[in-house]
């Protein structure tokens, strides 16, 4: 997707020197992201599944990974969602300080979700938590808005299936728990999740901050290209250690055995309080759908 496809980025009266983006441009972009994310797995996840296929001995696990690859191919070709759980729409937006959206940005995003789920024949899975009545159009999406430098509007779309989301957790460990405590908690969560989150999974880990910051770090860790290590060597080493242990002791492909419980572990960190060690684990299934666009 590029700006040309999305129409002109102008309209409305903005502050001098600011780039103006119309809400209709945002809505159209989100609609496209929702549909594309449901049908087309990104190359990083396909590469990881191919590597998993090659790693497995011929047998049940390998056959299942082959089915997952064929599933991706059918989904893309036939325009059928990769998974029927087309998720709750989680949208990360970075709004450049030199950009102005002419109108209600949040409403424009919600409208894009509404249109994308309707026009893409995607499942509406969002309901009231008490009455369980379905909203019918998969809104509201969960929005994370951040202000950044620059003249761009970046939208990252992560439809999150809840078979894996339900296996996620936050722990407020005592600082004395240290690295061993972190490793134990993460591995224990993945182990306890078993086959429920559709392994092979991607494990997002948020370390530090506060209770809610750790959870958001874990979620945003899922946005990093698969298998790209954390830039800080000690964090990257911890990711590697966690992945090795999870795959050594884990459930394997779909809990049916084999060598691949997780495709990757991504860890994001943030300074925390001297009294605290928050650790969040956000599990993502192999149907790891993520798309982004820059306006």
């Amino acid at each position, binding site marked *: 997707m590029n700006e040309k496809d999305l129409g002109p980025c102008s309209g409305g009266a903005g502050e001098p020197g600011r780039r103006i983006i119309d809400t209709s441009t945002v809505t159209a972009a989100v609609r496209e992201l929702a549909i594309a994310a449901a049908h087309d797995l990104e*190359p990083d996840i*396909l590469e990881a599944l*191919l590597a998993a*296929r090659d790693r497995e001995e011929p*047998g*049940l696990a390998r*056959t*299942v990974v*082959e*089915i*997952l*690859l*064929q*599933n*991706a*191919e*059918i*989904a*893309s070709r*036939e*325009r*059928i*969602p*990769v*998974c*029927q*759980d*087309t998720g709750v729409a989680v949208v990360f937006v970075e709004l450049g300080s030199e950009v102005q959206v002419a109108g209600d940005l949040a409403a424009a995003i919600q409208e894009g979700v509404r249109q994308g789920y309707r026009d893409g*024949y*995607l*499942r*509406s*899975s969002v309901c009231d938590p008490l009455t*369980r009545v*379905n909203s*019918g159009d998969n809104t509201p999406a969960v929005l994370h808005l951040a202000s950044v430098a620059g003249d761009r509007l970046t939208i990252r779309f992560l439809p999150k*299936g809840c*078979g894996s989301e*339900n296996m996620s957790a936050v722990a407020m460990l005592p600082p004395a728990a240290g690295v061993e405590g972190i490793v134990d908690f993460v591995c224990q969560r993945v182990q306890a999740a*078993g*086959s*429920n*989150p*559709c392994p092979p999974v991607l494990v997002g880990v948020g370390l530090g901050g506060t209770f809610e910051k750790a959870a958001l770090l874990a979620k945003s860790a899922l946005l990093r290209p698969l298998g790209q290590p954390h830039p800080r060597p000690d964090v990257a080493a911890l990711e590697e250690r966690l992945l090795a242990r999870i795959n050594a002791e884990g*459930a*394997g492909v*779909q*809990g*049916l*055995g084999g060598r691949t419980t997780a495709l990757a572990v991504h860890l994001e960190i943030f300074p925390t309080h001297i009294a605290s060690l928050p650790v969040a684990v956000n599990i993502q*299934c*192999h*149907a790891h759908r993520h798309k982004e666009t820059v306006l």
Partner: protein
Amino acid sequence: MSMLRYQPPLLASLPEVAVPFGPEVAAGLAAGDFVRLTGIVFTGRDQTHRRLVALLDAGQPLPVDLAGQLLYYVGPSPARPGRVVGAAGPTTSYRMDAYTPRLLACGLAGMLGKGARSAPVRRAMQEHGAVYLATIGGAGAFLGACVKACTLVAFADAGPEAMLRLEVKGLPAVVINDLAGRDYYEMVQKGLRPTG
């Protein structure tokens, strides 16, 4: 994705099991068996379960006689025009555990989903002679292509959670809980799974 780099799975050699099936067929299914299911299954997920059990509580008849049937935990995505169904992979089974023993008492022959079942469900399966199979989570497009016909049975207002009658052909599934009380996930965890 390069088509040269992956090979379609060779599923044709898997044993075909007609669904629904009687006790003789169930008795022949062993934990770890990889089979293909062909025939009729009824769908149900959270809301369907809640409503079926509410009907039982109220002494009302169920929309379909579950005796001898296989219940598939799935909420398909909407079908595009001209298609039978959208994506149709399994949802996580443990969420149905609270209701399952009640439905097993109605004579359910088995369930199809993903993930492990609770101890009470496993006991109820033993008591009522039912089996539990898992199909492949996240393979919704592949599994949707195994669905050849789809009709609404009940609870249309529940949207994706409505109860449907699906005609499936060659749907791959692994037997998790068999009539001998074995659990394949547990066997894997303990390193007891059969080789090959």
